[in-house]
């Protein structure tokens, strides 16, 4: 036998052996659990909320049966937490940090081999992983500082990430969005706070839902009907939504509560530990007295959540909102709402006014507002007094069409069937209030556009996407020139009211119009 043949035989043998080893890998027991265990010996001061819950030394353990020895899966991590299992049972996702100074990120551990892959790399960290029906990752970022989830200057938002691509932000509220979980109907359920006008240290937390593209943000349950702090919502096997409730932000006295999806705002009750176990809850045994079981998940396939095909138009910078009847609301504010004559549109965390819109005789109005910006409303009576106020809380995604039944309408209310007058007309458009970019600013300076120093960009000036520019501007635009804009020729109607706007200028190739608003 020649040397070459011998070598080939060796290679083939090794290949067969490797394949056999892979093929013979033992599957996990059907009742296997992945458990996060915390040592009681840690004394390092926590820096953020996850540090507090999952201090250094926390470990991820695979428990197949009570008799089998545990398998430690997180030897390369300083701390781990928040384990979840993919719907097909193929992998565990968790938050982890590889060094004491690094931020928390999301990792995936393939089963049963235990190969770990880092999924996120955000400078301010990522936490609270959840999995959509199509396998995409949902998480919250930044990780809340220890001072508190609800008081950080930069609120946490939800992100969706496909594979290891760049994540896309999907929530844009002025309060944090945390603790996402994916419901079987495909919506993302998360914890957030309502914006309040009263100066109180306690946030008004609630459960909200949003589609996987950030559209249709909607209150789901919990509204001042129990202790203020809630955490870790989960859908049980019977469809109920269980969550932790506590009287303090550190959740030190937390207990289990539940709402029924049939009437989520009217069914908040305590959930006993036995009920929770019966509905699919997980309670691993405490086998080692030196370690405390902080979180657990069952490694088993479960129903894959439904999907949602996005109808967003990413190229757009606005969305449309139709209110069917701004005079209709919950009984507590019905009288006030009935006096509504106009509605003021608010935008941004500082509730800047975008303008006002008169409501139609049937109470309806339709507005086109900036996308991905917190939006709110003030209902005004005939004298201009605010009757009902919704601080900037919700948002629309680019190209999203959103409707509401009324102002502060009762939860879970279906609309009446009638043709709102506002739907028979085009929406009232509010200019996109995005500040002029540095590039636009440089372009304006280069062409000696008179930017008055007194003008604060974003306040008196607005960028508006050009709509139907007349042909004769085409050549000038290709040259990148800045031309005075002759208002009154009709094509500027895309701007809400031309008589409120001073000279306008086309910003060359940017195909945008820079206009000055009259004081």
């Amino acid at each position, binding site marked *: 036998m020649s040397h070459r043949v011998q070598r080939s035989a060796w290679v083939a043998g090794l290949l067969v052996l490797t394949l056999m080893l892979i093929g013979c890998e033992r599957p996990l027991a059907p009742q296997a659990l992945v458990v996060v265990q915390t040592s009681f010996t840690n004394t390092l001061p926590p820096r953020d909320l996850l540090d507090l819950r999952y201090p250094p030394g926390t470990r991820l353990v695979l428990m197949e049966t009570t008799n089998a020895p545990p398998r430690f899966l997180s030897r390369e991590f300083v701390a781990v937490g928040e384990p979840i299992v993919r719907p097909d049972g193929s992998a565990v996702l968790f938050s982890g940090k590889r060094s004491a100074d690094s931020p928390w990120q999301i990792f995936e551990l393939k089963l049963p081999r235990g190969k770990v892959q880092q999924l996120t790399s955000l400078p301010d960290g990522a936490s609270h992983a959840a999995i959509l*029906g199509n396998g995409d990752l949902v998480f919250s970022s930044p990780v809340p500082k220890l001072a508190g989830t609800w008081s950080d200057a930069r609120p946490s938002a939800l992100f969706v990430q496909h594979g290891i691509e760049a994540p896309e932000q999907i929530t844009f509220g002025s309060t944090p969005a945390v603790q996402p979980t994916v419901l079987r*109907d*495909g919506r993302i359920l998360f914890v957030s706070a309502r914006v309040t006008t009263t100066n109180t240290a306690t946030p008004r937390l609630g459960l909200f839902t949003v589609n996987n593209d950030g559209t*249709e943000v*909607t209150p789901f349950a919990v509204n001042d009907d129990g202790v203020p702090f809630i955490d870790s919502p989960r859908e049980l096997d019977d*469809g109920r939504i269980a969550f932790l409730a506590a009287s303090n932000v550190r959740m030190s006295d937390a207990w289990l509560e539940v709402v*029924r*999806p*049939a*009437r*989520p*705002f*009217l*069914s908040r009750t305590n959930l006993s530990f036995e009920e929770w176990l019966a509905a699919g809850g997980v309670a691993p045994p405490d086998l080692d007295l030196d370690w405390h079981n902080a979180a657990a998940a069952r490694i088993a396939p479960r129903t894959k959540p*439904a*999907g*949602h*095909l*996005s*109808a967003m138009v990413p190229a757009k910078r606005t969305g*449309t909102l*139709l209110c*069917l009847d701004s005079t209709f609301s919950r009984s507590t504010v019905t009288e006030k709402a009935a006096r509504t004559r106009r509605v003021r549109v608010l935008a941004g965390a500082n509730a800047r006014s975008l303008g006002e819109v008169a409501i139609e005789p049937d109470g309806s109005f*339709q507005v086109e507002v900036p996308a991905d910006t917190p939006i709110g409303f003030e209902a005004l009576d005939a004298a201009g007094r605010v009757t009902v106020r919704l601080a900037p809380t919700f948002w629309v995604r680019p190209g999203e*069409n*959103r*409707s509401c039944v009324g102002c502060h309408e*009762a*939860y*879970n*209310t*279906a*609309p*009446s*069937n*009638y*043709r*709102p007058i506002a*739907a*028979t*007309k*085009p*929406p009232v458009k509010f200019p996109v209030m995005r500040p002029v970019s540095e590039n636009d600013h440089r372009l304006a300076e280069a062409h000696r556009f008179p930017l008055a120093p007194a003008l604060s960009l974003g306040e008196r000036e607005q960028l508006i996407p050009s709509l139907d520019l007349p042909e004769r501007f085409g050549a000038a635009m290709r040259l990148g020139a800045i031309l005075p804009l002759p208002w009154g020729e009709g094509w500027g109607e895309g701007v809400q009211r031309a008589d409120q706007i001073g000279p306008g200028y086309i910003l060359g190739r940017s195909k945008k119009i820079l206009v000055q608003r009259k004081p």
Partner: protein
Amino acid sequence: MKKRHAIGVAAVLFMAGVTILFGKRWAGAHVQRWTGRQDLGGVTCTHCHLQSIERMTWAKARAKHHSPAGIVVSPDGSKLFIACDDANEVVEADVRSLKVTRKLPLPGAPFGITIDAAGARLFVTCRASDRVVTVSTREFQQIDAVHVGDAPVAIAHTQTPAGERLVVANSLSDNISVLECSPLREIARPQGGREPFAVATSADGAIAFVANRLSTSEDVLAMPVSEMTMIEPAHGKLLWRHTLESAHLSEGIATLPGSTWSLMPFVKVRNLVPITQVANGWVMSSGLAIADRDGVRAELPLDEANDFFADPSGIVVDAAQQRAYIASGGGDVVSVIDLARITNWLAHADEATRLGAIRDLSLSADYVLARIATGRNPRQLALSPDGKMLFVTERLDDAVLVVDTATLKPAGRIVLGDGGLDDPIRRGERVFTSAAYTFQRQFSCRSCHPDGHVDGLAYDFDGDGIGDNMLDNRTLQGLAGTAPFKWNGKNATLEIQCGVRFARVLMRTDPIPPRELKDLAAFIEAQPPPRWERKRDQALTPPQERGKDIFFATSRPDGTPVPRERRCQTCHRPPLFTNRLPSEIGTRGARDSTNYFDTPHLLGIAHTAPYLHDGRAKTLEELWTIYQTNDLHGVTSYMNKHQLNDLVEYLKTL
């Protein structure tokens, strides 16, 4: 030799090229000459020629299944009788053994079924043959028959002071037949609402309540209303007509013994609201109407805030237990309703609360006791005389489920057929009727297209902007061979029409998987226009003949030629009565984005009101009396009312 061969081949190629070139030019000129348009691309000969009815899927023979339609239990509770419309059979089953004991072939699609108080005679409606048939339960043979209105579906038997009576809902002729039983004889036929579909009688036989499946409206933007018709069975006199706003798909009705109530499941439709979402019942939701002789007392939701039970259909009431059972055909569920709790709720609610309750999706948790999972497409229900057993037709499983009402758990199943899993049309019907393809199971294809037909409503999809391009719901019957689809004619196939696009703009969840989408297309293409075989063989009356002459006229009565592109037959070309091309007929609305709309086929057009792309024309007459513009929609300005009537009469024969 070789050279001559090459020359020959070259000559043939040259001639072929010349033929193709000139043929193409001639064909282009031909299309232009007939349509008057130069902007049409992709037109083939088959747009106007080479079509035949016989090649259509819906005209071909297809597999038949033992789909249970109506059921009734014998007064002693020992037998269950089942009408199987697709298989043309009435089946007797033994309740104790759950076995089929006898079968009676009965042509004409037996659909509704009832039994007399003694249990001696069955009365069966034959939907396709427009007859009511009496069947002896002892010999299990037909003993009598009588013609009634068009497409009778539901039937109820009652004893009145004037004798036994049958009340029959005729769905296609929009009227109600009242019959004497021995022998069968029609004594009255009062007008119903649109598509009468369910009948129930009061215990004393004084009132018959008729639920009408479709709604009508004064204007396409006005609130649609359906009707609950109440008649006196003894003489067939109309007593009251009560209206339900924005209600449709009422396919069941029941009375409550010892009470004046009638209970009618229905779909609360919200077609006038732009479809910006489906959550919270934005498009439609299921409800239960409670009515008495004074009108509708309350409309209560059957759905929940985050889960829906689409297409409510049959209902039965257990007076002893104060329960109602309601089948959800789209949700594969039977809901169990506590009537005592509803009574209590009604006692404390004012009128505004009672009538507005249908909007409060949190309310049903107060009175829905249980949801019982069933097989596919539960439609009709029956209760054993002692109330201990509930029978549920699982229409697309070819079975009847038996439920123990004490435990509310399944207790057995009567198997009628194999379910037809080998048949793509049957598989497609399962997709069509299931709400599982919609967010939170809110509605099915059938919710808007009952029996593959129309619901008579226009909808505002928001994909092109709120308020823009409001569209009339088109029939799916006779659709095969008429591609492209959608009013703008942009969808080349049914798979495109019903696939990803629909998931995005309407169903708001995952698209229908490709294999099931193919089955769905097969089912839709198998839907024939109503009564096409009968119409094809029917001789025309003189007015219809005159109308036909107008339809195919090439000149006015005074000899003035009608331009080719404005002749009826150019765009509505037989045999399908469409050339499958977009046409401009002067009907563009203020919020429409185009002048051109797909030319619909005219098969069964008499039953597809309203008309035009946005449903603005309530009747065929209005197409030309109100919405004609400069003779763009055919040359009709010369017509007097008799000529127009003749034309309409002819159209109704298609």
